[in-house]
């Protein structure tokens, strides 16, 4: 009996603690269904009259949420696809080659995990090279996530035995077919991890997109919320509806694929 009680108490403490996250989420959702006056009261009460879809309809209509969703989808899809290809290729050669050169290049890439992007010169260079809007955002998001992706793949390659490469080479397979035909299909687990983590990072990005996607036409959803806060500052019902619309995709993806995230954390924390 003395054993059972702490477990029960731990359970209760955990549930109580989880309210710190659950209550805010409930609050946002419930207030997104209220009218302007009752949302401004910011209470946890259920709406007296459910404005079920009107806030959402208004958001989609006036708030440019659909455009935002489309832009987010374009930018996120392109960046994640680019990251998969670039990081898996780079990490393969750098992990397999054991030369001073490859070590040096890997170190240069790891530097990107630490130092922040120099945003003003980066903007300068994209401007000078006429790389603009979506393309600029995608390129910048790709290079700022490149180090993490390469690091993740490098850790995974250590677990793929070189014997696989060697037997393929004995069969006369060239370097490209070795990578694309034999190695790449083996990467599924780590690729799933990269997809989830970079999807969330890019979908939610604000620090880069605010510089490179700076007109309402190419705002991503994250930028639409920020923009909203300024223009509709007292329409909390609309703001919360926007937050729900913007967060829903990423929360759904998380709930569906969460077990891969912990796996990814483990992979990402493997000592280099």
């Amino acid at each position, binding site marked *: 009996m003395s054993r059972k009680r702490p*477990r029960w108490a*731990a*359970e209760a403490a*955990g549930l109580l603690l*989880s309210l710190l*996250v659950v*209550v*805010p989420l409930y*609050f*946002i959702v419930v207030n997104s269904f209220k009218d302007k006056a009752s949302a*401004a009261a*910011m209470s*946890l009460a259920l709406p007296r009259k459910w404005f079920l879809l009107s806030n959402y309809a208004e958001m989609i209509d006036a708030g440019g949420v659909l455009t935002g969703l489309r832009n987010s989808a374009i930018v996120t899809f392109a960046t994640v696809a680019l990251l998969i*290809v*670039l990081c898996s*290729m*780079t990490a393969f050669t*750098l992990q397999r*080659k*054991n*030369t001073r050169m490859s070590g040096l*290049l890997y170190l240069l890439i790891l530097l990107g995990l*630490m*130092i*922040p*992007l*120099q*945003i*003003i*010169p*980066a*903007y*300068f*260079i994209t401007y000078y*090279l006429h790389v603009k809007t979506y393309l600029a955002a995608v*390129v910048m998001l*790709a*290079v700022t996530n*490149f180090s993490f992706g390469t690091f993740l793949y490098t850790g995974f390659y250590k677990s793929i035995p070189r014997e696989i490469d060697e037997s393929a080479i004995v069969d006369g397979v060239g*370097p490209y077919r070795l990578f694309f035909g034999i190695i790449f299909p083996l990467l599924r687990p780590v690729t799933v991890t990269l997809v989830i983590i970079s999807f*969330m990072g890019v*979908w*939610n990005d*604000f*620090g880069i997109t*605010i510089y490179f996607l700076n007109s309402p036409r190419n705002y991503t959803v*994250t930028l639409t919320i*920020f923009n909203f*806060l300024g223009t509709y500052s007292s329409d909390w019902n609309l703001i*919360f509806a926007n937050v729900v619309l*913007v*967060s829903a995709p*990423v*929360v759904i993806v*998380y*709930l569906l694929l*969460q077990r891969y995230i*912990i796996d990814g*954390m483990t992979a990402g*924390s493997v000592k280099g």
Partner: protein
Amino acid sequence: MKPTKNKPYTYTLILPGMLLYAVFFLVPSLFGGVLSFANIGRFSFSDIRFTGWTNYMNVLTDDYLSAAIRNSFVFAFATTLLKVGIGTALAVFLNRRLRTTNYLRTVAFLPAVLSTVAVGVFFTSAMHPTNGMINRFLHAVGLGAIAPDWLTDPHLAIYSLVGIETWKWSGFTMAIVLAGLQSISKDYYESANLEGASEWQQFRSITFPLVLPYFNNALIVNLIGGLKVFDLVQAVTQGGPGSATEVFGTLVFKSFGSGRLGEGAAASILLSLIVIAITLPTWKLIARKEVEL
């Protein structure tokens, strides 16, 4: 022997990635060093006028700008301490089997999934001085007298941001440490139990050293993240009131908007140097401990 071994692997595979990384990350990093000594108002090479250390002097001496440095440090150290402390406690707590373990882990990580701007929006409402959820709660439990102006009191605002950041990322830190705890094979504990090692001995010689690399990662990731913060501050306070929550990130953003690009570049370079100066020794210090143990 070596050259033949390397032959099947080709550097052409790294070319696309390295090229993009070099042009859009490494070159800007070096070019930032150049721009930080220049006075430029627009993005054109012919507009660059070298002015020596002026930008750095301005960043370091101007009250407004140096507030950013101070705030960045306060924010980074306070959030790292809290996130790593709370995250580790959560990881230890959720490393056991409760009936609700899966639910609790899912919920703890959830804030990390939400966009910082969305989180910022929520807390802007929750920290509203009169209607906000937090002060209402304080009033309800009889602490109404201390209910503060979370985001508009210049002495408090930066700590309110620290609180929001901690709410958002503690679960993420938990996931890193938890991954470490779960990577430890049960065999160690079994043989330690056979040897009659106490719980404390087991923690000291099994759990602690094996989880240290993960702990190290969590610490460094949070420290770097804290120094780099921009989105949260921009979404909630935009650096205000006054310069109370100005950080490196908002400083660069403001200089970008006002055309004082050289100062922005200088601030950005300073931030990089500070990040390197703090994280490298910290990482090395802990990494050395790992080897010793």
